């Protein structure tokens, strides 16, 4: 990061290669739409390059990258607020990926739709801790909240997710 701050584009290329996959996964799960996700990820890295001087050596690079991407996702939500989103438009992230069975694909689609129905803050908390495998401290830093607030968001999010999935299909979650 220090090299990037000095304008070293080669160092920036290494950073992109190291974090592109994880960041793309995060944004894709946040938005549920691969096309919009690519634009947000591109904008995130452009901001990293332009504002590298704002990075503080104490901050973990991945946490800083995720917080920029998270803010851009929030801006995106604010922009599209009010627009009607057709639930059928939520894509299964990779429809071409070989699924072991049709049923598994249906379950994955239902979970993805349920995730998109969560409030943004709850979704962010679950994605950061579950999918991005961040510690509670790191996830709280990304969202700029306390650890206890993060735990509350995750608990409420998971409860709501269960409720949605149970309403969709009684046998999906087994006995809860």
């Amino acid at each position, binding site marked *: 990061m220090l090299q990037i701050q000095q304008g070293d584009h080669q160092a920036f290329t290494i950073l992109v290669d190291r974090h592109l996959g994880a960041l*793309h996964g995060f944004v894709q799960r946040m938005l549920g739409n691969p096309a919009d996700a690519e634009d947000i990820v591109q904008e995130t890295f452009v901001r990293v390059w332009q504002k590298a001087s704002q990075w503080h050596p104490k901050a973990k690079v991945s946490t800083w990258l995720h917080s920029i991407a998270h803010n851009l996702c929030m801006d995106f939500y604010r922009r599209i607020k009010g627009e009607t989103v057709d639930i059928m438009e939520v894509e299964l992230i990779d429809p071409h990926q070989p699924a072991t069975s049709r049923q598994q694909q249906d379950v*994955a689609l239902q979970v993805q739709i349920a995730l998109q129905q969560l409030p943004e803050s709850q979704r962010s908390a679950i994605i950061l801790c579950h999918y991005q495998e961040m510690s509670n401290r790191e996830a709280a830093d990304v969202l700029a909240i306390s650890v206890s607030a993060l735990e509350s968001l995750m608990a409420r999010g998971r409860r709501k997710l269960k409720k949605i999935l149970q309403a969709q299909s009684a046998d999906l979650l087994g006995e809860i």
Partner: protein
Amino acid sequence: MNLQNIIHQHKITREQFSQLVDAYGGDTKRWPIEKQAAALKLLEESVEARHLQCSASNLDHLLDSVPISPPTAMLRQRILTQTQRYTEPAQDAWQWFIHWLMGTTIREHFLRPAFALMVPLLFGMLLGFNLADSPTNESLAAESENVWVEEEISLLALGPME
């Protein structure tokens, strides 16, 4: 007494355990490190705790079932190209114009110089039409001569009446 002992001796209630799995799910690796030992101990002792963990794990498995597509190679290229552009030194206006004039595609190689030639041509034509509509120099001279003669006549007429 070191931290490890403190963690081991710390007890967790059923309520706290429930809150833990509610937030972090059933995978023990995702639980905060400072609560892991006490939670695992309760898990060994309590059937109810195991039931709560199993229930939370069901949701974890469902979350894991959602696939993710990798980023396209084009995305990486787009990011690097766009950021590279910011590193290049700023061009002056003339360099920018030449760069623009040359274009980047075959179509632009022809269309942009043609457009650049058309602009002064159109400007010249527009100027020519405007001049044709305005009064000529001769008519302006004749008009000013008439005004001069009229002024002379009026001066003679208004001379002293003595």
